């Protein structure tokens, strides 16, 4: 890797969301909450989801980690707000495939949202950093499944 490659990983949008994360707050009306923990680096995140039937009415997160994990959590909250649970799951599959470099998962009808998550795709060239990018998403998934108070670990 070179310094140039590192600049491709740390695109301006990542640095911006890392510095000024959106939706970084607790959500009093949340009915689904989960904690994410990456024991490798000590990063912790709590994801709050206010689910109204099948619709993600609102979501937010707390906790700080590296720029990648913070930016990923921030972008996730922006992209998922107002989506259905099914669309959110499609986006997670698409995003996961993108950052792990696995077989692409076409999240049909969600191309704009995938485009918004694209700045994180560079992570696939940094195997040790993939977990930073997926931590908040795993916590989000755990929150949907288990209601309040689950903890998910990425190792």
């Amino acid at each position, binding site marked *: 890797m070179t310094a140039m490659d*590192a600049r491709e*990983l740390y695109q301006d949008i990542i640095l911006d969301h890392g510095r000024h994360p959106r939706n970084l707050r607790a959500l009093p009306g949340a009915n689904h909450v989960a904690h994410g923990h990456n024991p*490798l*680096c*000590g*990063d912790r995140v709590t994801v709050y989801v206010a689910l109204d039937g099948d619709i993600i009415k609102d979501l937010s997160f707390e906790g700080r980690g590296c*720029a990648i994990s913070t930016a990923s959590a921030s972008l996730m909250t922006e992209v998922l707000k107002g989506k259905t649970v099914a669309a959110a799951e499609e986006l997670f599959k698409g995003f996961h495939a993108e950052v792990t470099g696995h077989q692409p998962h076409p999240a049909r009808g969600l191309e704009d949202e995938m485009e918004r998550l694209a700045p994180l795709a560079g992570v696939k060239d940094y195997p040790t950093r993939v977990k930073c990018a997926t931590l908040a998403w795993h916590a989000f998934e755990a929150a949907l499944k288990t209601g309040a108070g689950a903890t998910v670990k990425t190792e």
Partner: protein
Amino acid sequence: MTRAATHSAVKPEFDPRAVKRDFPIFARNPGLVFLDSAASAQKPNVVIDEVSEFYRNDYANIHRGVYQLSARASERHERARATVARFLNAADESEIVFVRGATEAINLVAYSWGLNFLKPGDEVLVTELEHHANIVPWQLIRERTGLRLVAAPIDASGGLDLAEFEKRISKRTKLVAVTQLANATGALVPVDSIVRLARKAGAKVLIDGCQAAPRMPVNVRAMDCDFYVFSGHKIYGPTGIGVLYAKRDILEAMPPFQGGGDMIENVTFEKTTFRHPPARFEAGTPDISGAIGLARALDYVETIGRDAIFAHEERLTGYGVDQLSRLPGVKLVGAGQRRLGILSVDVAGVHPHDLATILDGHHVAVRAGHHCAQPLMDKLGLAGTTRASLGIYNDESDIDALTAALKAAQKMFG
């Protein structure tokens, strides 16, 4: 030999750039700025060649075959033990037990010595500077022995607070288990004073020499510790081999750690008798080539000169401290009164993992995270640090590359 003051009088200083040519990794990876020797050191040609030469010429299982090849392999393995004994200035070769690494060495002491000699209420005194490998084994046997694990705190400067240490040592203290050089921060621990205090209280002393053994002269008899442990791979030797030194009478009193071949005198289904140390603690076929490679690494280190290496590490550490202290926003994580070979930094506004990735982009290899010292990180109020650690192949240009890359990272995140 253990005194810092002698270093200037002995060997002339060596040229790290010449030493670097002994390490093929640098020729194969031009531009590599390797500052992670505290995690694992690179290997010189002589070690790589020794291991492959042994496999080519003399390899067979040891202590078993009556044939000549096995006798030759056994002889080389035992010669390696003699080299380690000389390297540590042990009284006898039988005080050297080959293990997988320092982690296994400490576990061996915990499970063999600890389980048999520690009673409910006995205390094991460690410090807040310890690596997890010198914390977790004591916790694992805590339930079964009823021991109390006590941690002596660091002071405001990040070094061991010797006065607080002294307060925590008492007749209840049966073992003092301390690092000689903190892996996360480079804080040098005054082990001579610690041994004196432990002796007064009648406690045994275990020294974790993982970071110290590669960087400074070690003399276990002068130090008068009961146990000394280190890993081969951090001292330019192979992975998978390490050393437990223990005083002979203590080893003799310790029961086996693992059972198997090579450690027994006689086995029946009713009763088995065990061999004397060190064989008692070396069940099964050991890492024969590892031991031989380690001995070659120790010879190599002694050829360069351990006082000269100590002087080199001190000088380069000083240069690193000077350079890093000049960078605004870069805070050297405290290492107390004396720091050796390790420069741990906290950079304002840049997470250690982001920093390590950016530095990697500049070919600077460092470690980021908690360095297997989470209690210390908690005490310092840090999630982690970015750690640069020095070896015999590093020189000022590596520090300069580090500071240049740090500045670039700060600019990116500024």
